[in-house]
């Protein structure tokens, strides 16, 4: 630390005020520490750099997916199923789009209410009880289980007796989504201020009234975000679908017993085959999947912000 004003009194202060006044002014003496200024600038630059480095892969991915996917992305791609041979140009991924939509929606319909109720149980009823702790523990374990294991489980439990199908794919996605929904919703519900709940109880509201009319509305934006994270994760899962829905060139007609295409699996098949036509379709499929998740998220955001009155 350079001590005193001689080390680096700012030119303005030295010129503007008499020397004695500047020396006696503790504010001026503080700001003259050059080491401090240097440290401050260095820290700021380091943080900007770190933020940029984080952004680099994201931007690169977006750029590549758009650059490589856009040429193939046309009306035909969006509306036509996959051709019989990878070598052939033309055709599209509509079979995969429909399969993904069916499976994700089905999985969401099952896992989101269940997960939400589970989270409500954890926050409002179970709290630190034994059952709640057990549920929390297994949710955490489940979040960490590789998704291919989930696929294997559903394969054994459902595919072997009933065959491949949308329901089986949805089941595996639901199993993957459930712990994410539970844990993210729990965190969001915990953020609802205790004061709001107390206000409700003090007005003579019961437990369920308080949850349904105060806690859930107040937590809605956060709950939506967490849920959408789970949906996005499910929409991009490949491994479990290979084991539960497989894939198909046609648009699916039955929910059970019929192999069903999905966007990620089609991307996977397209990307690993040697023919340029198939690879190009894979790129376009990746772009389509990306946009799909984006649309889901935006819709959910709009829906949840509609009814809220946060400033």
């Amino acid at each position, binding site marked *: 630390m350079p001590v005193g004003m001689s080390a680096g009194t700012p030119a303005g202060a030295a010129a503007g005020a008499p020397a004695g006044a500047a020396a006696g002014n503790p504010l001026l003496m503080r700001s003259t520490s050059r080491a401090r200024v240097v440290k401050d600038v260095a820290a700021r630059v380091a943080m900007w750099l770190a933020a940029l480095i984080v952004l680099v892969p994201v931007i690169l991915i977006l750029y590549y997916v758009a650059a490589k996917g856009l040429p193939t992305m046309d009306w035909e791609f969006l509306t036509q199923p996959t051709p019989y041979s990878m070598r052939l140009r033309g055709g599209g991924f509509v079979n995969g789009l429909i399969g993904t939509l069916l499976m994700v929606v089905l999985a969401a319909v099952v896992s989101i209410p269940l997960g939400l109720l589970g989270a409500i149980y954890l926050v409002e009823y179970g709290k630190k009880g034994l059952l709640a702790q057990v549920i929390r523990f297994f949710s955490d374990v489940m979040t960490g289980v590789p998704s291919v294991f989930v696929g294997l489980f559903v394969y054994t439990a459902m595919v072997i007796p009933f065959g491949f199908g949308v329901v089986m794919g949805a089941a595996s996605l639901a199993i993957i989504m459930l712990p994410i929904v539970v844990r993210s919703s729990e965190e969001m519900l915990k953020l609802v201020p205790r004061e709001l709940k107390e*206000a409700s109880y003090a007005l003579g509201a019961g437990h369920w009234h308080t949850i349904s009319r105060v806690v859930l*509305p107040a937590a809605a934006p956060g709950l939506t975000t967490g849920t959408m994270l789970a949906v996005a994760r499910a929409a991009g899962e490949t491994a479990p679908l290979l084991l539960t829905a497989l894939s198909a060139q046609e648009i699916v007609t039955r929910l059970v017993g019929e192999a069903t295409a999905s966007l990620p699996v089609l991307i996977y098949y397209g990307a690993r085959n040697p023919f340029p036509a198939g690879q190009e379709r894979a790129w376009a499929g990746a772009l389509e999947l990306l946009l799909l998740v984006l649309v889901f998220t935006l819709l959910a955001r709009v829906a949840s912000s509609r009814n809220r009155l946060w400033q």
Partner: protein
Amino acid sequence: MSEEPAFRVRDLAVSYGSQVALKDVTLDIEPRKIIAIIGPSGCGKSTLIRCFNRMNDLIPGTRVQGQVLYHGQDIYANDVDPVTVRRNVGMVFQRPNPFPKSIKENVAYGARINGYKGNIDELVERSLRGAALWDEVKDNLNRSALALSGGQQQRLCIARAIAVQPDTILMDEPASALDPVATSKIEDLMQELKERYTIIIVTHNMQQAARVSDKAAFLYTEVNEAGTARWGVLVEYDDTSRIFTNPRDKRTDDYISGRFG
């Protein structure tokens, strides 16, 4: 004076788990009076006020002994539903805590969940007028309650409490988060409210207690010999003018004149 007390508290003791928070509280609260609960931090003021509407029940492990008689009925009796108690004994909290809903829905909340059959708009207007807020918000009833100022939010919380038509309102440091102007509005409002409601207020502000209340209860912290446990006791309960000019107990005198605590 001859009127039946709104509350009779007899040998009340509250503990959280194995820790005693408050004990030996016995006092009568006359209806349509303002009663201030004062004392140093941690002496159990909030614990005491939360006994009057069983808000302590919400904290797991809370045990309440003794009796709190509300118009003769022990509210801690086995067959009493705390929800019923809270519909009769409203509460306003330290920090204004309106729901993230519209002004109107905030006021209507209690009525709606209690299955109010009358005209909600009338109830909202009456309650907002009662809380001296109507003129400020009548054109914006559907705006978010969170857009109001802190003082307005607190009066909204009072309107919300009186919409349930209680006969007692508990106020846990209702003005401690407000500026002096908003504070004096709340204090004026309390004087109007006491024509119809019994008001029990916890306050850290001695001058506020002296200004607004008719009677004051001074709680103080006692410590056991080993210094390992502390709990609140009721030291003195008397007319506010008496407490602030000539308290009987030296601890009261020392505390209110700022000699400790």
